[in-house]
């Protein structure tokens, strides 16, 4: 397989930098062959991961960094977003669409990630923070469902 086209970004933990990573992700999705709407989906998923890294992981401390690696291959894109935080329990996550939570003003980021890309993985390592890995594959033809995906 041809080696992936790779972009690494390092940002300080400021929410106004989210747009930089968002637009880089959209461009990379375009390189991978995604159309405009599919690229926006990738951009939005990466955006949510970066927001979480800045807000929850790094507690908006601008001296902490967020590391992002974007890899475009023909028909697929991978994003890794890593913070310097102390992790969290993904299994404790509440369903933001439940009646109890629907009027909460937060708690929808991971839902969006899972809706907009095919795979979402979380890994926490002591001293290395949380790493979120997002993968999206280009669907063939006009099918809306995602036949061969292992999601």
């Amino acid at each position, binding site marked *: 397989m041809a080696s992936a086209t790779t972009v690494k970004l390092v940002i300080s933990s400021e929410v106004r930098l*989210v747009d930089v990573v968002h637009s880089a992700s959209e461009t990379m999705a375009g390189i991978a062959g995604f159309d405009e*709407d599919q690229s926006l989906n990738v951009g939005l998923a990466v*955006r949510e991961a970066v*927001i979480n890294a800045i807000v929850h992981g790094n507690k908006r401390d601008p001296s902490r960094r967020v590391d992002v690696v974007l890899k475009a291959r023909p028909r697929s894109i991978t994003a890794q977003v890593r913070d310097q935080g102390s992790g969290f329990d993904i299994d404790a996550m509440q369903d933001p669409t439940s009646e109890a939570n629907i*009027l*909460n003003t*937060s708690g*929808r*980021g991971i839902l969006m990630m899972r809706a907009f890309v095919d795979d979402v993985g979380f890994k926490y390592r002591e001293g290395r923070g949380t790493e979120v890995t997002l993968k999206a594959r280009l669907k063939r033809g006009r099918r809306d469902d995602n036949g061969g995906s292992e999601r």
Partner: protein
Amino acid sequence: MKTTVRTVGEVSVVDLSGKITIGEGDIILRDKVHELLEGGHKKILLNLEKVSYMDSAGIGELVACFKRAREKGGTVKLLKPSGKVEDLLQLTKLWEVFEIFGEEQQAIPSF
């Protein structure tokens, strides 16, 4: 994001354009709705026709506006969400929380 407010009868129609995202659109939306509520304008219709997308912070602010209006005896309704904005309202099931209209002529008398 940009906003302009029109008054149609007793309803304040807020035409939004751009994206409702963290640190920018969400704050503009919050401030605008706050201003309307403080000024005694309790019937608020957010026109989303020209909103290209929202992130989770933007969606959260929509909910916050909805709740803040309700606390003050007011209402926030939505007009013409489309594309990604519509997808997001469906995904988050907020489609069932908000009153949503496709036409301004139908939205206005509903207040």
